[in-house]
């Protein structure tokens, strides 16, 4: 029982990071119907931004977190304006290939500028709490607390602010949104900014959890977060949160029963399963394509 609880806690804290990254995938998909495969690398850039904020600029952890989010928000806007906006009316596969290209660019540019060697991310002083045979570390609490706080803020922004309403309007019907006087370009930029900032937060949280950052660290978590977004229902914000948590718990569970070699395969097994059983995702509705 204690073992089960322990793995559940590990899974939830890992899953909440997947959820943060998955939110960016799903929001961007919701508004421009693009799977931004460079999103995992934005998470990596965020982790490095946090690393330099702490190491070079001596910022405290939360200030570094905010700084990394700001850096990636700006990066997200620039990425959209330069790489995706010119392709908005192009066939979708063009934007998809651009995303893959961008991903390689981010990875190799980081290797070129910073080096391929992993860097030690300054960890916060470790504290462990024990009760009922379960160990919870302060960095797990930090991950979960920050992720939940960010998701609450996101929910508020999307549901109750003018910008959030504009985002939902653009994702439901772009032409009609324009007829409401909504500036679609700015709304899309804003969506990229939020999604990228959330990825950066995920990167910094994972950086301090594992104590290491490196240029290829975004590749696998990026793909897994994509799976989480699909699992929950791509384009659906609560779906990304649910998908991320399920994925995290599933991974921790598989390691717990002794198959930790297959840890990374779990996510993709889930992807195959969901595409066979319910391609629209857990919260998705099956929409028939209208002709």
């Amino acid at each position, binding site marked *: 029982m204690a073992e089960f609880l322990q793995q559940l806690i590990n899974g939830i804290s890992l899953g909440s990071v997947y959820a943060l990254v998955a939110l960016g995938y799903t929001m961007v998909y919701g508004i421009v119907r693009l799977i931004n495969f460079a999103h995992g690398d934005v998470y990596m850039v965020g982790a490095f931004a946090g690393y330099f904020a702490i190491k070079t600029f001596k910022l405290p952890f939360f200030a570094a977190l905010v700084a990394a989010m700001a850096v990636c928000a700006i990066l997200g806007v620039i990425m959209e304006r330069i790489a995706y906006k010119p392709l908005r009316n192009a066939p979708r596969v063009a934007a998809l290939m651009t995303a893959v290209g961008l991903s390689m660019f981010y990875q190799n540019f980081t290797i070129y500028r910073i080096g391929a060697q992993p860097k030690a991310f300054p960890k916060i002083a470790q504290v462990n709490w024990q009760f009922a045979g379960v160990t919870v570390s302060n960095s797990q609490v930090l991950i979960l607390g920050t992720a939940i706080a960010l998701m609450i803020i996101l929910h508020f922004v999307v549901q109750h602010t003018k910008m959030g309403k*504009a985002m939902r309007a653009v994702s439901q019907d772009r032409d009609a949104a324009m*007829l409401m*006087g909504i500036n679609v370009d700015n709304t899309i930029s804003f969506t990229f900014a939020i999604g990228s900032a959330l990825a950066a937060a995920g990167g910094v949280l994972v950086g301090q959890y594992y104590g290491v950052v490196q240029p290829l660290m975004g590749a696998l978590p990026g793909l897994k977060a994509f799976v989480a977004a699909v699992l929950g229902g791509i384009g659906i914000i609560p779906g990304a949160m649910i998908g991320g948590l399920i994925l995290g718990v599933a991974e921790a569970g598989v390691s717990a029963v002794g198959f930790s070699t297959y840890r990374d395969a779990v996510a993709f097994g889930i992807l195959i399963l969901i595409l066979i059983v319910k391609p629209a995702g857990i919260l998705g509705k099956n929409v028939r394509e209208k002709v």
Partner: protein
Amino acid sequence: MLKVKDLNVYYGGIHAIKGISLEVEEGQIVTLIGANGAGKTTILRTISGLNKGKSGTITFKNTEIQTMPAQEIMAMGISQVPEGRRIFPAMSVLENLQLGAYRRKDRAGIKNDMERVFDKFPRLLERIKQQAGTLSGGEQQMLAMGRALMSRPKLLLLDEPSMGLAPLFVQAIFSTIKELNQEGTTILLVEQNAHMALSIAHQAYVLETGRIVLSGDAKELASSPEISEAYLGGTIGH
């Protein structure tokens, strides 16, 4: 108020609008009638800035608007109820109406106009929390009109407001259009239901495959033999 001059619009290689000129005077209801595919919707989309013309001018209150982005055209006072209603299906009735007032900042005025919309369409007030996608077709049309009114438009563009509605709703929608006009909103109405459109309009233009083939006083057109033959199901087979 609105002047369209020698407008040409292309869809890819298709010449959809072939040198059209038309005028909407302040305070009037002007209708644009014609068969499916005549280019009615394209004209409205071009006025709203969703499509761009290749040549010609569109001026609103003596300002050239064709070079402006759609959201700025809307902010100048041109609001559109698009074909197929295009409400935001996953948002509530209230949120849809709020989005209609997206560019406004006068809270008191917005509140007033919301009450005005509910006066006109009490059904919307009953369903204020409901998701717009679950409304019936007629209710969605009311919502689309209410949403457009929330911007307090000077010129209201209506694209086939009667499409797919039960006759009772069609009656109600047309009397609302008339009422709005009497309250001071200028209206450009696109319709396939020529009979209804001509009965409430002041001026009318008849569109055929991208060209205006007839125009003039709506009452006169309604009684002209060409119109009754082609559009009012008149004396076919004579």
